[in-house]
């Protein structure tokens, strides 16, 4: 299947230099996103999932160290000149950032902010772009879109802001939409609305849906990747990974849900500066054997298109 991937990430390493040492936020990540699929990227705080999404569009701080390849339709995004990268952002790949509360500029109306991207990439005139903004707001389920397009972000509720951001990201009909925790911090009813929106919006593009919420990923994703301490530890079809998880971490994650018995994983996630040797999950793993803390496991195929990074399957 390699040839037809829309986005192909190979050996991606992302590091932030800090006074305490190099934070390895993402370590040798391989990932493909295929046309018209929704890939759910599950991970907990500090697992490197947000960094991965930001790295694709090169939105990280300038002093970040990035290695590897990110191929979008055959072109390596990491080696594109900045001017060409600007044509990819928003037009080819759209992103919904975390923290919807602060991701809209408070001094411009929401309509203006959506129209901005349309004017830039599709060359529409001002009034046409505003018309398009209203249509987009309508499409993402904002009531009274004509009036709301003329309102400033502080008049929008949390859920409405999230919708407006999704509209901004979709404005130029990108081929890939990266959504970074669009349901974070929302209460159940609002969250439900956003999840429903994602399952309704037109299906011509691929979605990379980054979340810490296993149930949401299960609702939306066709395939699921699980990240732990900067690595992908399990990847495969959503039903396989969440229905019959292979990696002990994925299993632990599912078992710790209140609905599934609330069995916690002992310990806490390792620091990304001083990672444990061998398997990064081994210090918390119930199935760990002696070898786990010595050898670093690779991804092993455990089913059709279903891989896990665990010694159990060697």
């Amino acid at each position, binding site marked *: 299947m390699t040839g037809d991937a829309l986005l192909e990430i190979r050996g991606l390493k992302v590091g932030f230099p800090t006074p305490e040492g190099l934070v390895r936020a993402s370590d040798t990540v391989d990932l493909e996103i295929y046309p018209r699929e929704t890939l759910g990227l599950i991970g*907990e705080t500090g697992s490197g999932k947000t960094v991965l999404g930001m790295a694709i569009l090169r939105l990280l701080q300038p002093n970040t160290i990035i290695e590897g390849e990110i191929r979008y339709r055959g072109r390596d995004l990491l080696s594109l000149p900045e001017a060409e990268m600007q044509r990819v952002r928003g037009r080819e790949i759209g992103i919904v950032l975390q923290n919807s509360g602060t991701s809209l500029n408070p001094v411009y109306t929401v309509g203006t902010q959506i129209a901005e991207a349309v004017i830039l990439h599709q060359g529409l005139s001002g009034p046409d772009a505003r018309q398009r903004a209203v249509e987009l707001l309508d499409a993402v389920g904002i009531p009274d879109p004509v009036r709301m397009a003329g309102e400033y972000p502080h008049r929008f509720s*949390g859920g409405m802001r999230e919708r407006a951001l999704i509209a901004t990201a979709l404005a130029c009909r990108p081929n890939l939409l990266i959504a970074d925790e669009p349901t974070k911090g*929302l209460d*159940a009813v609002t969250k439900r609305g956003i999840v*429903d929106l994602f399952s309704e919006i037109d299906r011509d593009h691929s979605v990379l849906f980054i979340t810490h919420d*296993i149930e949401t990923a299960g609702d939306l994703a066709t395939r699921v990747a699980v990240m732990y301490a900067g690595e992908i530890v399990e990847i495969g079809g959503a039903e396989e990974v969440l229905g019959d998880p292979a990696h002990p971490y994925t299993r*632990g994650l599912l078992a710790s849900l*209140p*609905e599934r018995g609330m069995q916690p994983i*002992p310990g806490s996630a390792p620091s990304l500066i001083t990672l444990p040797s061998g398997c990064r999950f081994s210090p918390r793993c119930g199935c760990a054997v002696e070898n786990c803390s010595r050898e670093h496991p690779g991804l092993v195929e455990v089913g059709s298109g279903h891989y896990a990074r665990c010694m159990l399957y060697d």
Partner: protein
Amino acid sequence: MIEVTDLETCFSTGFIRRRVVRAVDGVSFRIEEGETLGLVGESGCGKTTLGRSILRLVEPDRGRIVVDGTDVTALSRSELRCFRPRMQMIFQDAYTSLNPRMRVRESVAEPLKIHRMGSRTDIDRRVRELIEEVGLNEEHLNRRPYELSGGQNQRVVLARVLALKPRFLVADEPTSALDVSVQAQILNLIRDLGHDYRMTCLYISHDLGVTRAMSSRVAVMLEGRIVEIGRTADVLDRPSHPYTRRLVDASLTGPCASLERLPLPAAPTTVEVRSGHWVEETV
């Protein structure tokens, strides 16, 4: 154990043109000894204000609160300070619940020092006991909040609160900022310690899964009012109020019927649909 009658808390904004927001609007309920009542509702429905009003961290405007036989609303400021050890609260964000400049040791010892509970060596011994009770060890005593993870900080908060052996605990979404794998640790810890310390608990959450796991009874809050209250299984499996139904639907997977804003009656009446399961009538 806890009896809240007709509680009302308003906020006013603006100095000259006052606008009054009634965050808690005539709430009454009881919590029996050793029981945990779950409180669910959307953000902004007034559940945090309700929790804080019961402890008089926000002054209620009207109503009566009886905790463990004492009318909290009638206490003077100094009486209230002496009574405070009996009722405690933990917050959503453990990191901001601890003074960033204080070491864990100081934070945990602080309640004991405020209430002069024992000599210096007694306090020191008690701090070490507490820190182990919440699953940390002496090494952590010299750390500061930013050197600990979210889960570890929430454990410190628990130790600090338990130092006073409270009879009543308000837990305001203590795990909503945590990852699921850590959330399960903290929830189990709260449940176990609540049992060990024989605490009565008001557990505030917007996550129905967590509420189901933590509480025996549940109250549903909407726009400052409790619209449904009863045993957890009754309320969440057979919701009677349309708003509760909407909450339950939203937390299920699969399609859900989205409801428009509910018209609320001006003078609500409450009916008992099953034994101990009360619902506010809708128009």
